C-alpha cells in the first residue's frame, strides 16, 4: 500500500466510546486526520452521537481512508455522516481504499448509519467494513451503494462487509460492480439494472432465543435471519431514495 499513499491522500478517523458511569457515554478519543473529521453532536437519544464530516471530497483514486470506532462495555453510540461519500476518479490509475473497523463490547450498542456511498463515473474504490462484536453487543449497521450520480455510468466499486459475533463470522459478503467487475454483475442474477443496493445488519443477543423469520419485502428486498443472532436486510432499488425507503421500512419491522 506504500505505493498508493505516495500519490494519494491518507485519511484516518478514530472514535472510542466509553460508558461514563452516570448512564451516559463519553468519547475519550475523537480524532480525525486528513479529510475525515468526526464531530460530536447533540444527541436526541440515549448515548453519544457523532457525525463524520468529510472536509474534502473523495476518496479519489489512490487515496486510503480508515475509520474506526471502538465501543467499550455498556457504551452507546450513534454515528452518521454529514453527506454522502462520493468516490471520484483520481490523478492516478490506482484504486482508492476505504476501511471501516468497528469493535463493540458486551452491553454496548452501536448505530452505524452513514449516508450513501456513491461510485461516480470513472472512480475505482475498494471498501471494507468489518464489525467485531462481543456476544452481548448490539449493532444496527446500514450500508448503501449507489452506482453513478444521476444519469452517469457507474464507477468501479467493490464492497466487502464482514460481521463477526463472539469470534464467529456470521456474515461475509462482497459485491463487485461497475466497469471491469467480474462478468454478469449487471445481469439477472446480480443487479439486473438496479443502481442502488443496500444492506442493513441488526445484531441483538435476543435473536438467539427468538429468531426473526425470513420476510420478503416486495420486489427487491428481503429480511433474513443469519446463522447467528443477527438479521440482514438486503435490498436493490432503482435509486438511492427508493433504497432508503425500503431499508427504513425493514428497520421499522424490527422495532
Amino acid at each position, binding site marked *: 500500500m506504500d505505493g498508493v499513499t505516495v500519490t494519494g491522500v491518507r485519511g484516518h478517523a478514530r472514535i472510542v466510546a466509553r460508558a461514563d458511569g452516570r448512564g451516559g457515554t463519553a468519547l475519550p478519543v475523537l480524532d480525525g486526520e486528513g479529510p475525515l473529521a468526526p464531530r460530536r453532536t447533540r444527541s436526541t437519544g440515549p448515548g453519544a452521537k457523532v457525525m463524520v464530516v468529510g472536509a474534502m471530497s473523495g476518496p479519489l483514486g489512490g487515496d486510503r481512508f480508515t475509520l474506526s470506532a471502538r465501543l467499550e462495555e455498556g457504551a452507546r453510540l450513534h454515528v452518521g455522516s454529514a453527506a454522502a461519500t462520493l468516490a471520484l476518479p483520481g490523478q492516478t490509475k490506482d484504486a482508492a481504499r476505504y476501511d471501516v473497523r468497528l469493535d463493540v463490547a458486551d452491553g454496548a450498542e452501536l448505530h452505524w448509519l452513514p449516508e450513501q456511498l456513491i461510485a461516480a463515473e470513472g472512480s475505482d474504490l475498494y471498501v471494507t467494513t468489518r464489525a467485531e462484536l462481543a456476544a452481548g453487543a448490539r449493532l444496527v449497521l446500514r450500508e448503501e451503494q449507489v452506482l453513478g450520480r444521476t444519469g452517469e455510468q457507474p464507477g468501479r466499486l467493490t464492497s466487502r462487509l464482514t460481521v463477526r459475533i463472539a469470534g464467529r463470522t456470521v456474515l461475509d459478503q462482497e459485491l463487485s460492480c461497475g466497469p471491469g467487475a*467480474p462478468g*454478469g454483475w449487471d445481469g*439477472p442474477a*446480480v*443487479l439486473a439494472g438496479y443502481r442502488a443496493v443496500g444492506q442493513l445488519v441488526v445484531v441483538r443477543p435476543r435473536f438467539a432465543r427468538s429468531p426473526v423469520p425470513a420476510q420478503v419485502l416486495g420486489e427487491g428486498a428481503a429480511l433474513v435471519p443469519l446463522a447467528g443472532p443477527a438479521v440482514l436486510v438486503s435490498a436493490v432499488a432503482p435509486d438511492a431514495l427508493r433504497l432508503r425507503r425500503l431499508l427504513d421500512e425493514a428497520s421499522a419491522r424490527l422495532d
Partner: protein
Amino acid sequence: MSRAALLVLADGRFPAGGHAHSGGAEAAVKAGRITGAASLEDFCRGRLHTAGLVAAALAAAAALGADPAGLDAAADARTPSPALRAAARRLGRQLLRAARATWPSPGLDAVARQFPKGAHQPVVLGLAARAAGLGPGDAAHCAAYESVSGPATATVRLLSLDPFDATGVLARLAPELDRVADSAVEAARRVADEGTDALPAASAPLLEVMAEAHAAWPVRLFAS
C-alpha cells in the same frame, strides 16, 4: 489422479439431487429476467462469478483437507438467505449419500456422522472429490460448472428453450469457468495459513433476495 473419476462426479446424472434445483433460474424466469439464451448467459455469468466462485473455493479447500466444520461455517456466512442455506445443506446430504455409495471411505463416513442434517453442498463436493482421488482443481471445476449447468438445464424445462442454445451458453462460459476455478484454488490454498477469511465472499443480491421469494411460492417446479 483419474480424469474419468472427474467425469463421474461432474456428470449431470450423478444421483445427488441437483435435478430438482434451478439455481435461482425459476425465480428469474418468472420475474421476466431470463427470457432466452442471451439473458440465460448473462444470468449464468453473474452466478458463476459470485455463488459459483464461492462454491468452487469451498470445494477446493475441502479437497485440500481444510476442516469441514470451518468451511461449513464459512459457507453459512456467505449465504445470507436461509432458503439457500437449507437447500445447500439438503443437497450436501444427498451428495454425501451418493458419494459414500460411489467411493466408500472412512472420511466420508465421518462427515456423515459429523453433519447428520447435511453440510453445505460445495464442502461435501470437495470431500467427495478427495475420496474419488481428485484434486482441488477438479473440485473447483465441478462446483463452478454446477453453478451454471443447473440453471441452464432448468431453463430448458421452464422456457422450453432450445437445448442446443442452452448447451452453447455453457460452452461459451468455459474460458471464464476455467479462470474462476483457478482463482478459487488459489484462494483455497491460502486457507491453511490465513483461515477461511481467505475464501472469496462474492455475492449476488438478487439471487439471495429472489431465493426467499421463491421459497414462499405456493406452486413451483423447482425446490430452489
